[in-house]
């Protein structure tokens, strides 16, 4: 069997078409079951008590009154979730975040939870829990947190990644540095250097479905968890470890997922639900309210970025140097590192240096949000590049074309690129009709580029051929936006059968080996590679079965157009999959293909966005009036859903650029934990979002597939900033570019 993942260069029959998605009818009729739509027999209602303080020592928790309330079946605190992580640096913060231990680190941090026979009882019980806090000084701002006098969150936090090890603890958890060349020498060659500080505020993924799960832990040490997640295998692994269970004894079933965008890659409620269930000895359902989602689940980082770039008068970037501070919540993440890696990834630079600092603050634990950390870095880089182009009198697109990375370029974060799409996306932008369209009064046009790595990793799939010849593909990656259609298309392509004969399902953790999450735009890339290999194995098996049926050598059976054919000049009629499947009982039993692999070589992804805005000079209000996304998708398996990813990312970026932000009060409490004041774009805020798909095959995938999901959120902040600058003449350095900030900038410019 051919298990070579290399690009085949084949022409496609199924891949690239646009059939209806297999989960569609359930989703338009209300039948699809999401996290909160599942009920177990005997299920209890759970609720979580959360800290009202941004930073406080928990002196005492008295649960006796709550436990005594009739109908209450369990009350848990951190004592019911003892630390069994054995010092695991990744796991312990997850546990500490799910349930505060000695300290509450942010407004909304869970401190206790109850399970009761119904919601009114659970609510009443929550009020009977008495928590004695000692309120501590807090810090929520990323710049203030690095000041010498800032309250330090963890006394044992000594900055990692610096030599020598600091003598004092601080809120800078980690420093990561990337780059090559000599930036000082580079700036010497520059004719123009621009140096600016940029700030971006904290945003939330804003998925419409709040976190929800139902946990049932049995006294025999086994358990079931129903949950909306981007990775049920990862959830199983971590939950079992945190609860001290054998991993294989916990079965996790993923519900349909009502949006994640990175926010459902992380545990928030699940270990708590399991602890409640273990204590109550009954299934427990936990569902977050929207307020809890905002206060206590995965926002992205707030950032403060010092950006310095130098160019020669002919538009060559000679040096770039950036220091990027990313808020990480109360525990270290890799957010600044990702920002430092992605910042200059679009460009071919001789001298480049980036320094990322993970900054701890009294805000909820940061988690991934679509191309995590890249949009903020791109905002800074692409804003300065636009300004530099203006200063030297060069067209912004031309300057980027001149500096674009290409095959063979050493990326600023280390590796050497294969075939990539930044140059082609810029050429496409240059030639796009949008670039030539006329602008109206108070309007301006901006463009910007973006990059995302894309991930690969562990995948495991089963492909089973039924007796009628129809095919079930079982995968372990969550379908967040149409992947089941794409994977069915790939299997149909490989087997040579119609799409309608392939059903892709997402198996629970009992059905497959470990699968990494649907993150890093890996779902379709990695699972399709595994699915194609499974199909190839099944084809191999079917060739052998056909050989048996024909009583010829398997070497004389070829596979063509979904049929086994005997090689050479024979009278043997070709056998369809249905023919072979029907005879399976006599030829060796069920026919299947199973694959486990580590998908390497996820092709990197680049995009260029063009955007027109109109700014009301009297109110500072900004409307996006036209938007175009150009992105390299590798092979677009289901182009409609590729467009959907492009459009969705752009819309999220537009919201981030203009209106979305966490607002904290002086008291360290989140002031806008709801969709009323955390303003994601509504339908009337946006224009149609035009898309252009470029298909530069990924050499490391049989069909040339790359990840497509994330890159589209990277350019919008800068594209809008540049458009606002071209509309008004002011350079916006603080995101969101809300009306008061734009009016202030206009005032400053006219003063």
């Amino acid at each position, binding site marked *: 069997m051919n298990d070579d993942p290399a690009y085949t260069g084949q022409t496609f029959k199924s891949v690239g078409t646009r059939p209806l998605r297999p989960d569609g009818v359930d989703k338009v*009729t209300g039948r699809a079951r999401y996290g909160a739509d599942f009920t177990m027999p005997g299920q209890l209602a759970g609720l979580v008590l959360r800290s009202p303080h941004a930073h406080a020592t928990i002196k005492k928790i008295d649960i006796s009154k709550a436990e005594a309330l009739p109908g209450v079946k369990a009350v848990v605190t951190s004592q019911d979730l003892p630390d069994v992580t054995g010092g695991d640096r990744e796991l312990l913060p997850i546990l500490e975040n799910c349930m505060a231990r000695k300290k509450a680190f942010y407004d909304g941090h869970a401190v206790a939870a109850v399970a009761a026979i119904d919601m009114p009882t659970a609510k009443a019980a929550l009020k009977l829990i008495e928590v004695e806090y000692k309120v501590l000084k807090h810090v929520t701002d990323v710049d203030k947190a690095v000041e010498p006098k800032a309250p330090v969150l963890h006394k044992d936090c000594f900055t990692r990644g610096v030599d020598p090890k600091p003598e004092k603890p601080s809120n800078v958890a980690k420093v990561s540095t990337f780059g090559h060349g000599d930036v000082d020498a580079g700036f010497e060659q520059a004719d123009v250097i621009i140096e600016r500080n940029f700030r971006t505020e904290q945003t939330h993924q804003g998925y419409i479905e709040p976190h929800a799960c139902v946990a049932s832990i049995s006294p025999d040490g086994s358990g079931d968890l129903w949950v909306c997640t981007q990775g049920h295998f990862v959830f199983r692994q971590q939950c079992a470890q945190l609860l001290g269970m054998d991993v294989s004894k916990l079965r996790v079933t993923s519900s349909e997922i009502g*949006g994640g965008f990175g926010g459902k890659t992380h545990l928030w409620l699940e270990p708590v639900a399991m602890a409640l269930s273990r204590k109550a000895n009954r299934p427990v359902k936990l569902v977050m309210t929207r307020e809890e989602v905002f206060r206590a689940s995965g926002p992205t980082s707030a950032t403060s970025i010092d950006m310095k770039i130098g160019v020669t008068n002919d538009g060559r970037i000679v040096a770039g140097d950036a220091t990027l501070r990313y808020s990480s919540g109360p525990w270290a993440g890799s957010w600044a590192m990702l920002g430092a890696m992605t910042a200059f990834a679009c460009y071919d630079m001789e001298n480049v240096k980036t320094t990322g600092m993970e900054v701890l603050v009294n805000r909820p634990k940061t988690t991934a949000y679509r191309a995590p950390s890249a949009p903020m870095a791109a905002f800074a880089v692409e804003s300065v590049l636009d300004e530099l182009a203006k200063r030297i009198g060069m067209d912004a697109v031309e300057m980027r074309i001149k500096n674009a990375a290409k095959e063979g370029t050493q990326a600023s974060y280390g590796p050497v690129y294969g075939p990539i799409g930044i140059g082609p996306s810029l050429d496409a932008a240059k030639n796009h009709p949008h670039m030539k369209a006329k602008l109206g009064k108070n309007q301006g046009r901006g463009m910007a580029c973006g990059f995302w790595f894309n991930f690969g990793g562990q995948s495991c799939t089963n492909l089973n051929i039924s007796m009628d010849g129809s095919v079930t593909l079982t995968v372990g990656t969550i379908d967040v936006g149409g992947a089941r259609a794409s994977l069915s298309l790939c299997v149909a392509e490989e087997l040579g059968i119609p799409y309608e004969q392939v059903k892709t399902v997402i198996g629970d953790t009992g059905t497959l080996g470990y699968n990494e999450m649907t993150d890093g735009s890996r779902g379709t890339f990695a699972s399709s590679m595994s699915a194609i290999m499974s199909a190839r194995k099944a084809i191999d098996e079917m060739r052998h079965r056909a050989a048996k049926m024909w009583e010829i050598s398997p070497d004389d059976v070829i596979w063509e157009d979904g049929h086994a054919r005997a090689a050479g000049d024979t009278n043997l009629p070709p056998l369809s999959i249905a023919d072979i499947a029907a005879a399976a009982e006599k030829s060796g039993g069920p026919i299947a293909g199973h694959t486990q692999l580590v998908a390497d070589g996820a092709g990197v992804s680049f995009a260029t966005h063009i955007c027109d805005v109109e700014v009301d000079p009297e109110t500072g209000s900004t409307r996006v009036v036209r938007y175009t996304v150009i992105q390299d998708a590798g092979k677009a398996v289901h182009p*409609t859903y590729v467009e959907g990813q492009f459009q969705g990312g752009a819309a999220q970026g537009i919201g981030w650029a203009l209106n979305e932000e966490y607002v904290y009060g002086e008291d360290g409490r989140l002031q806008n934990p709801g969709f*009323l004041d955390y303003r994601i774009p509504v339908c009337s805020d946006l224009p149609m979002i035009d898309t252009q798909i470029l298909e530069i095959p990924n050499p490391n995938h049989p069909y040339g597939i790359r990840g497509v999901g994330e890159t589209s959120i990277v350019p919008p902040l800068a594209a809008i900033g540049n458009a606002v600058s071209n509309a008004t003449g002011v350079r916006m350095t603080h995101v969101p570019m809300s009306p008061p900030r734009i009016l202030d900038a206009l005032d400053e410019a006219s003063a």
Partner: protein
Amino acid sequence: MSMLVSTTVNGDSMEFVCDASETLLDSLRDRMGMTGVKEGCGTGDCGACSIMLDGALVCSCLVLGAEAEGREIETVEGMSDGSKLHPLQQKFLEHAALQCGICTPGFLIAAKALLEKNPDPTETEIRYALAGNLCRCTGYDKIVRAVQDAAKVMNKKGKKA
């Protein structure tokens, strides 16, 4: 205080018992099994729980279950005609107007309410009419196109009849 409420959901008479403070959203989901009605916020800001209540488009999270007494409710579960999808459902599928799908029931109900009132809306009218329904996946582009296309199909049918 518990209340016994008699109501009509998608043409069927139903009775349920709920606490007087329970929302109709919870009653629909937990007492009547209509989990197609989704909770995204519970405060009327996302539209995922949209239903028709006596012909008015409302957020069921902002209605008490007790208020449903004697009233008629339509949810996404009652939208198709047997196995035949409503044109809006069909067009949402064809245009890939859903990715995760959690907002879809609310959008379908709101779009149906719009087209019943205004069978031939402009793009702007569609966008404003659907502003109470948040979608975080699609950027709304394909949703608006699906509604435009459904309106076309429904108007053609209307003319034939």
